[in-house]
C-alpha cells in the first residue's frame, strides 16, 4: 500500500463519516457543520485527482456560499423544529433499505466494467496547462461556450426568483 493510497483512505473515511453524520444528526446546525467537513474532504479528493482548479471552486462555491446559505436557513427556521422533535420519518428503515439496494446495484454494475481497475497514466502536461485548457474550452465557440453562457442565465434567473420568493409579501392580501 502506497502513501497515496493511505491518504486516499484517510480522506474517504472523513468524507463518509461526515456524510453519515449529516444525514443522521438530530441537530441541524451540527448536520450543516458535518456537511462542511464532508465537502472539504471532497475538495481534497479533487486535489488528489490533480484537478486543482475544481478544488478551489469546491471551497469557494460549496464551503463558502452553499454551506453558509444552508446554515443561515437553518438558523432562520429554527423555531419550526426543535431539537427534541423527531428528525427522521416513520419509513426510515425502508429508506435505508432502498439506499442500500441502490448502492449494491451500482457496485454490481461496476464489477462488469473491466477498465475500472485502471491506474492513471501520468499527466503529460503541467497542471497549469489543464487550467488554461479549461478556461479556453469554456469560451470557445467550438467547445463549451453555449453551456457556459446558459449557466450564467440560469444563475441570474435563479437569483431574481430567489429574491422575489424569499422577500416577505408586501401587504397581507395585497398585490403579491
Amino acid at each position, binding site marked *: 500500500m502506497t502513501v497515496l493510497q493511505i491518504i486516499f483512505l484517510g480522506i474517504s473515511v472523513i468524507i463518509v463519516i461526515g456524510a453519515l453524520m449529516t444525514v443522521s444528526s438530530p441537530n441541524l446546525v451540527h448536520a450543516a457543520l458535518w456537511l462542511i467537513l464532508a465537502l472539504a474532504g471532497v475538495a481534497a479528493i479533487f486535489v488528489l485527482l490533480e484537478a486543482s482548479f475544481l478544488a478551489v471552486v469546491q471551497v469557494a462555491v460549496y464551503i463558502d456560499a452553499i454551506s453558509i446559505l444552508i446554515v443561515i436557513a437553518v438558523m432562520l427556521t429554527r423555531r419550526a423544529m426543535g431539537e427534541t422533535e423527531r428528525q427522521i420519518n416513520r419509513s426510515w428503515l425502508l429508506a435505508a433499505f432502498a439506499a442500500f439496494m441502490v448502492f449494491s446495484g451500482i457496485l454490481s454494475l461496476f464489477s462488469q466494467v473491466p477498465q475500472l481497475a485502471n491506474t492513471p497514466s501520468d499527466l503529460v502536461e503541467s497542471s497549469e496547462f489543464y487550467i488554461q485548457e479549461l478556461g479556453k474550452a469554456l469560451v470557445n465557440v467550438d467547445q463549451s*461556450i453555449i453551456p457556459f453562457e*446558459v449557466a450564467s442565465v440560469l444563475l441570474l434567473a435563479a437569483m431574481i426568483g430567489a429574491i*422575489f420568493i424569499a422577500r416577505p409579501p408586501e401587504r397581507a392580501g395585497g398585490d*403579491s
Partner: protein
Amino acid sequence: MPIVPFDTSMIAAISAELLLLLLAGVILAVDMIWGSKQKDHLGWITAGGLLFILLISLIFTRPEPVERLIFGGMLRQDWLTFTFRLIFLFAAAITSLLSINLKGITGRGEYYALLVVTTLGMSLMAASADLIMLYLAIETTSIPLYILAGFMKSDDKSTESGIKYFLFGALTSTVMLYGFSLLYGFSGETNLYLLSERLTGGEISIWVLGGAALLVLVGFSFKVSAVPFHFWSPDVYEGAPTPITAYISTASKAAGFAVLVRVMITVFPEISLYWTSILAVVATATMTVGNMVALAQKNIKRLLAYSSIAHAGYALIGLVAFSELGIASLLFYLAAYVVTNLAAFAIVVFFANTVGSDEIADYAGLSRRSPGLAFAMLIAFLSLAGMPPLAGFVAKFYVFAAAVESGLIWLAFVGVLNAIIGLYYYMTVLKVVYLYRSDDDEVPIAVSRPAAIALGVSVIAVLGIGIASGPWLGWALDTASSLF
C-alpha cells in the same frame, strides 16, 4: 456524425434562443422603468414578443437538409429541435396571455422574465446533443418553474406546490445526473452521438448500459410525470397559478418527451428490446393509474392533472412502438395534447377569475351563464376524450395504429380500454356543465380579452389539427425520420 466547426450561419440556428434572452432582458428593464399602472401591459409585451420569435424561428431556424451538430456538438440542428421549439413558443405565448389580469401575477416583471427563461431552457432541451448541455437545459427549465409554481407567496397552496415540485425535481434530476456521469465514464465522451458510437461496439455489457438507462429514465419519467414518478403532479398542478399549471402540463411535459425520445433512440438502441418492454409496462401503469384516480376527483385542476398523467401514458405508446411511425405519432399526439390542454386550462382560468372556485360542482349551469365558454369546453374535453373529428381522436388513432404496426396489439387494446374510462369522466364534467342548474344561472362569466384570444386560438388549433390532420402528420413523419 461529425461536428461542424463554427460559421456565422449557426447564429441564425440559435436566433430564437438569443431573442428569448433579449426578450427576458427587455421585460426586466421595462419592469424597472414603468410605473405600476403601466405594468399591466407586461403580459402583452411578453405574448407579442413570443409570437414574434415564433415567426422568426419559423423562417430562420429551419433545419438544413442534412442534420448537423453545431457549437462543438452541444446542439443539434434538426427537425426535432425545430418542431418542439415551435410548440414551446406557442404554449408560452398562450400562457402569458392567460396570465394577464390574474391577481398577484399581472404586472410582475419577474414572472414574465422567468417564463421566458424556462421557455429558453425547453428550447435548448429539445436541441441538446451533449450530456452537459442536456443537464443544464433540463435545470434551466426546471428551476424557474419551481419558482413560478410557488409564485403566489400569500397563497398556502401555491407555496406548497412550489416546494413539492422543487424537492421531487431536485432528487430525480440528481439521480439522472448520476446516470449521465456513468454514461460519460463508460464511453469517455459527453456528446450523445459520439457516445453512442462508443457504446455500440459491444464491449460494454448490456447490464451496465441498462443500469445507466434506468438511472436516466428516473429523471425523464419525472419530467413527463409517468408512473411511478407521478406523485408530484396533482399537488403541484392544483396549487400552482393556473397558467403555470397549463404550462407545466403541456410544454414542460412535451420537453420531457423531446429528450426522452432523443436519448433513448440515440444512446440506447443496443438495448431497445429491454427499455421498450419497461416503457410498455410504464405506459400501461401510467394510463391506468391516471384514468382510475381521475374518476374520483372533485377539483377540476386535479382532474386535469390525472388526465394529463394518463395522456403521458398514451404518448409513451408511440415511443414503445420504436418505429418511425411510432415517433411521428408521438409528436402528433403531443402537439394535439398541448393545444387541447391549453384550451381546457384557459377555461379554468376564466371560470376561477369570475367564480373564484376550481370545484367541478360549481361548473353547474355554465352552459346558461356563458354558452360560448361551455361550447369551447365541450370541444376541449371531447378532444381530450378522443372523440372524432377533433385533434385528440386523430392523435389517439395514430398512436394505436403505430402500436399495432409494431405488433403490440395488447398495448393498443389497453389504450382503447383506457380511452373508454377517460370518456366517462370527461363526460361527467360536461354533464355538470350542460345539464345541471345552479342558483346564479343569470350571472354571466366575465370575459377578459387576452384570455379570450388565447382560448380562441387554442380551440381553432384543436379543430384545425383534427380536421386537416394530413399535413401535420407529414410534418411529424419528417421530424421522426431525422432521428433514425
